[in-house]
């Protein structure tokens, strides 16, 4: 790695560390809404550590997933949810909630089984895996994953899942409709389900290794299909690997944090602006910047109260990540005059 890349990684890591410290120190008196900075008592510390873990793992999953998808789909607009995974997870969760209300009304059998998972990660995982398989089946052309076909298929499947979610939602009593919107804002749970946490951590670890090792394959894949193949890259295998990793990471992050796609869109772009476009460096950079963005967003939302309690995390990721990205993008343009994606 060259100097620019190492410096960039350092900056990002420092930001992440500062974010962790901030998140651990910032507290708020829920009764009067005032913010304080101090080392908390142990029972509170546990919760803050829980949130830190969720943010790091969730953000890292999102950042890496976004990077892999942008490379796979060759589209700068790709984000973890372009393939419809979060929409699928949302749909499954909604179906679970709906069946829970059916169970209460006397339904039995498998509906009850799904409903039972409602407070766990099962429906989300099942939903996003189902979508993953569907998109994989539909997104191929001539037996191979084709970027354009895949990206269009994913978008369409995502929209269809979203529509079905609305459909299921309109079957539920209106008083419980409002709540479910909250789910779509995403969370950084202070009490992460240990199942989701472990799954995500393991998937993150494996995907990180796989993508870091595929770093130069990813670079090579950018020189055109024929030449990449002739360099020794098995595009078929690379694409399937990327697809599976990106999909698994997106599913894991959905199970852990709900749908916060924006982190996954912006972390790779930010890393690219800071470190250039070699994937060996981008893989760790996206992981770190994803975690950093999410933890800073969570830290900041501890210290803001506009009168309705904590804001949804999605609001903060957008309000922090968005302007930072726009600023970096503009400043780098000024400096180099050239920016390739």
């Amino acid at each position, binding site marked *: 790695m060259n100097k620019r890349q190492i410096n960039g990684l350092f900056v990002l890591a420092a930001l992440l560390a500062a974010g962790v410290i901030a998140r651990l120190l910032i507290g708020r008196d829920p009764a009067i809404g005032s913010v304080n900075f101090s080392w908390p008592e142990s029972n509170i510390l546990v919760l803050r550590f829980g949130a830190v873990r969720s943010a790091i793992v969730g953000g890292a999953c999102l950042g890496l997933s976004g990077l892999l998808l942008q490379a796979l789909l*060759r589209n700068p607009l790709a984000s973890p949810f372009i393939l419809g995974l979060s929409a699928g997870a949302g749909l499954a969760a909604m179906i679970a909630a709906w069946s829970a209300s059916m169970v209460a009304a006397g339904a039995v059998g498998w509906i009850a089984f799904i409903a039972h998972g409602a407070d766990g990660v099962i429906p989300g995982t099942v939903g996003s895996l189902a979508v993953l398989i569907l998109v994989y089946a539909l997104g191929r052309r001539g037996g191979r994953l084709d970027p354009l076909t895949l990206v269009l298929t994913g978008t369409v499947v995502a929209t269809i899942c979203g529509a079905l979610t609305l459909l299921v939602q309109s079957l539920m009593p209106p008083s419980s409709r409002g709540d479910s919107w909250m789910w779509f804002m995403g969370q950084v749970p202070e009490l992460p389900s240990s199942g989701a946490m472990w799954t995500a951590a393991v998937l993150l670890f494996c995907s990180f290794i796989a993508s870091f090792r595929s770093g130069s394959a990813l*670079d090579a894949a950018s*020189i*055109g299909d*024929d030449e990449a*193949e*002739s*360099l020794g*890259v098995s595009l078929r295998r690379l694409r399937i690997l990327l697809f599976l990793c990106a999909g698994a990471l997106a599913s894991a992050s959905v199970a852990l944090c709900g749908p916060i796609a924006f982190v996954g869109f912006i972390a790779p772009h930010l890393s690219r602006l800071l470190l250039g476009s*070699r994937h060996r460096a981008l893989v760790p950079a996206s992981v770190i910047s994803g975690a950093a963005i999410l933890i800073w967003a969570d830290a900041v939302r501890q210290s803001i109260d506009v009168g309705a309690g904590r804001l949804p995390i999605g609001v903060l990721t957008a309000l922090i990540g968005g302007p930072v990205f726009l600023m970096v993008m503009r400043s780098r343009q000024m400096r180099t005059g050239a920016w390739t994606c």
Partner: protein
Amino acid sequence: MLNIETLSFQYGRRRALTEITASSAAGNVVALVGRNGSGKSTLLRAIAGLTHPNAGNITWRGQRLERLAPLKRALEVAYVSQRPSLSIDLTVHELIALGRFASRSRLDSNLRIGQAIALMGLEALKDRSFHELSAGEQQRCVIARALAQHEENGLLALDEPFSNLDPGETMRVFDALKLCARAGALVVVAMHDLALVDRVAQTVWWLEQGRMVATGSPPDVLTPTKLQEIFHCEFDRGPQGLTLATRVSSITT
């Protein structure tokens, strides 16, 4: 030893190669010539093992390259396409380093990358962004990448590597290819400059409308009468070898 047997290939329903048969030993430079659209690029991609032929087969040292795993194939054959592209922002050095993708040894790789850069005279451009080079400089980079990748006794398949190169660079590339051939490689080059073919290639494969119409040494194959027939322009074979004659000069006057 490259062996092509009754190879046929079609794009959808359009036939591009029809029952090509040819072979060449290693240590040669084979020039692939023929009119535009005669199937040179298609044949070269088949030779590099990048497509699955519809009929017939190609073997290199007894192996069918298109059936090898890409990582193994990359050790046998290096390929340069007619239309190089790059969708991310790499420096020249980084691009050439991609040529060593399939190799295991780090040390050896750095050596080979350095050699390739030196051979193509790219030292001064090493750290510049590939996208900010002129077309000829880019062409040299992709050739350097193939040279870095290419193993001794391997196969080098180059699709019009001389396009966009100035005469000096053309010579440089030609020298490099000769060197590879001498060291035991088989170099297959699609090219149009018949004067160069005549001077440098040991073997010429001539394609017409997807068929192999002539194979042999340049003086045998590239006779002025045949060339006149195909390209409608006159060539002379003088002491300097093949040169373009009349018609053109007739207009100039």
